[in-house]
C-alpha cells in the first residue's frame, strides 16, 4: 500500500438517519405500488366477498343471519384465501422487486442502513395490504346493512370489529413472512404458495397438537367464539376438530404479535447481511 492519503484523518461522514431513510423509502414504495397493475389484480380479488355479500342479501338472509354469514365469509374466504393471496402479492416483492428489477444497486450504494430500507418497504406493503382488505371488509359491512340496519346490534358490531382486527393482523403477519421469502429465496412465490397452501392450509386442519405449529391455527383461535352462530363454517370446523388444542386466544394473539415483530426483524437482518450479485 502507498503512503496514507492526505485525507485519511478526515472524519467519516455519518450515514443518513434511519427515520429519514424509512420515510423516503416508505413514500416511494407506496407510490410505486399504487402505480402497479398488481394492486388492481388484488383489488379485484378483494371484491369477491362483496359479490357473496350481495348474493346473501338477495336470498340467503333467512338461512344465515348476519353474524353467521360474516363469520363464514371471514373464515372461508378472508382467512383461507385472501390473507395468503394479499400476503404473497405484497410481501414477496418487498425487496424481491428491487432485486429482480436490479435497482437494488442504487439503494446499496447510498449511505443508508439496509435495515431502514427493509423497514420502509415492509411498512409500505403491510399498510397497503391491510388497507386493501380493510376497504373490502368495510364495503362488505356496508352491503350487509344498507337498507336493513336491523342486523346491526352490539353483538354483531363486536364480532365485526374482532374479525376485522384478526384479518388485518393476519394480513400483516403473512406479508411480513412472505417478505422474508422474497429476501431469502430465488423463487419466493413458489415457496410462498407451497407454504401457504401446503403447510398452513393443510396442517392447520389436522386434529391434534400439530396444528398449533401453524399461524392459521392461531389466527382462527383469536376469532371471537360465537355459541349462537349456527351453521357457521368456523363452528363446523371447530366441531370437526374434536381434539382442538385448548390454547387461550390471548396466547394466540401474543404469538401473532410476536411473529409480526420477529418477521420484521429477521427480514431486516437477513437483508442487511445478504450479498446481492446483480448482473
Amino acid at each position: 500500500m502507498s503512503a496514507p492519503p492526505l485525507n485519511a484523518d478526515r472524519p467519516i461522514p455519518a450515514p443518513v438517519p434511519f427515520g429519514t431513510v424509512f420515510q423516503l423509502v416508505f413514500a416511494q414504495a407506496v407510490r410505486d405500488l399504487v402505480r402497479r397493475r398488481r394492486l388492481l389484480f388484488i383489488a379485484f380479488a378483494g371484491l369477491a366477498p362483496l359479490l357473496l355479500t350481495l348474493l346473501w342479501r338477495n336470498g340467503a338472509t333467512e338461512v344465515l343471519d348476519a353474524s353467521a354469514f360474516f363469520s363464514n365469509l371471514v373464515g372461508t374466504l378472508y382467512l383461507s384465501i385472501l390473507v395468503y393471496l394479499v400476503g404473497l402479492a405484497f410481501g414477496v416483492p418487498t425487496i424481491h422487486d428491487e432485486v429482480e428489477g436490479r435497482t437494488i444497486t442504487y439503494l446499496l450504494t447510498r449511505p443508508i442502513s439496509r435495515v431502514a430500507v427493509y423497514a420502509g418497504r415492509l411498512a409500505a406493503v403491510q399498510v397497503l395490504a391491510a388497507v386493501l382488505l380493510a376497504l373490502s371488509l368495510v364495503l362488505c359491512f356496508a352491503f350487509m346493512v344498507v337498507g336493513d340496519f336491523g342486523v346491526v346490534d352490539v353483538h354483531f358490531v363486536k364480532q365485526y370489529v374482532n374479525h376485522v382486527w384478526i384479518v388485518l393482523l393476519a394480513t400483516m403477519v403473512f406479508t411480513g413472512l412472505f417478505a422474508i421469502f422474497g429476501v431469502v429465496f430465488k423463487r419466493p412465490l413458489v415457496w410462498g404458495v407451497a407454504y401457504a397452501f401446503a403447510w398452513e392450509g393443510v396442517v392447520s386442519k389436522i386434529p391434534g397438537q400439530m396444528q398449533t405449529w401453524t399461524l392459521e391455527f392461531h389466527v382462527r383461535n383469536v376469532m371471537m367464539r360465537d355459541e349462537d352462530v349456527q351453521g357457521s363454517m368456523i363452528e363446523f370446523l371447530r366441531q370437526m376438530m374434536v381434539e382442538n388444542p385448548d390454547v387461550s386466544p390471548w396466547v394466540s394473539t401474543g404469538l401473532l404479535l410476536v411473529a409480526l415483530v420477529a418477521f420484521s426483524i429477521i427480514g431486516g437482518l437477513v437483508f442487511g447481511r445478504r450479498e446481492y450479485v446483480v448482473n
Partner: protein
Amino acid sequence: MSVPTTMGPETPVMRPGTAVLECDALTRWYGQVIGVNSVSCTVHPGVTGLLGLNGAGKSTLFKLMAGQLKPSKGRVLLLGHDLAHDIGLYRWIGFCPEQDALYESMTGREMLVYLLRLHGLSPREAGARAEGALVRTHLIDDADRPVGGYSKGMRQKIKLAQAMAHDPAVIFLDEPFNGMDPVSRHESMALIRELGAEGKCVLVSSHILHEVEQMTSTILLIQNGRILAEGNVSDIRDLVERHPHRIAIETDDARALAAILIGAEDVLGVRVEAPTRLIVESNHPRLFFGRLPEVALDGGVPIRGYVTEDDDLKSLFEYLVEDGS
C-alpha cells in the same frame, strides 16, 4: 488538476497524487471460479480507464471497489478508510451500474431527487442538485418524462446523472457508453473529462480501447481477473504496436506475394492459406501497412484487399498473457 478542488460540503478536498482508492491483494471467488485475482492498485484523482474484454472481471472489480461485493481476500480503502466498515463512506461514492435498470415509473427528475434525498440532502438541495445533473447530462428537456420511455442513450445518461449528482469524490462508471448514440457518447465523454479535471476520481470501465483513450491516458488493463498492465495509454499503444498482428491479404497470387514479403524486417512470418489468400504476421503493423501499396506495385502482384485479423483487445491480452508467462 494542479489546484485542489473543493466539491460538495461532504466531499473531501483532494489534491493531485492523493491515493483516493487503494486495493490491496483484492481477491474474489464465486465458488470454484475466481472473479478477481489478487488485484493491488492505487487510483488517483482524474479519469482512470479500466480496460478489459467482456468477462475479464471489470464489473466484479468495480463492485468490490464500491463495496457491493465482499472480497474473499484483501481489502479496499477509500481515502484511507475501509468501505466495509462504515456505510457513511458511501456519501463519497457515485456508482453507475452496467445493468440497464431504472425506476421505470419515475420521471428522470423524480428518480434523481429520490436518490439524492437518500444521500441525506434536503428536498430543496436535492431538487437543485438534480437540476444541475440533468443540465450537465443534457437531459433537462426530458426531465419530467417517465424514464421507462427514455431511449437507451438517455437511460445511460440518467444513470450517469445519479452517480455524479451528489458530488462524490469517487465515481464508478461501469460500461457507461453501451448503447449510446455517437452524440450522447461524445457529450458523456466530455462530461467525464470535466469531472476528472474537477479533481474527482472517475473510474470508467470499457472493453473498447479508443473509447477510453478519448477520456484519459491512465488505464488499468484487466484480463482473467488480474491486472495485466497499469499506466499510460501510450505504453499500451506501444504494446499494441509491438505485438504480432495477423493480416489476411486477398491477392491474385499468394505465393508470389509471400516470396516478396518474407524477407522484410517488419514481417515475422507468412502463410499461404489459399492460392489467393495470404496470412502475414507483422510486429510493426503501421510500418507494414505503409509499405504494402508500394510492395504490391513494385512486385507486380495485385492486392484485392486486406483485413487485420486480430487488431483488437483480445489478441493484445493474449499477447500480454503469453508475454508475461
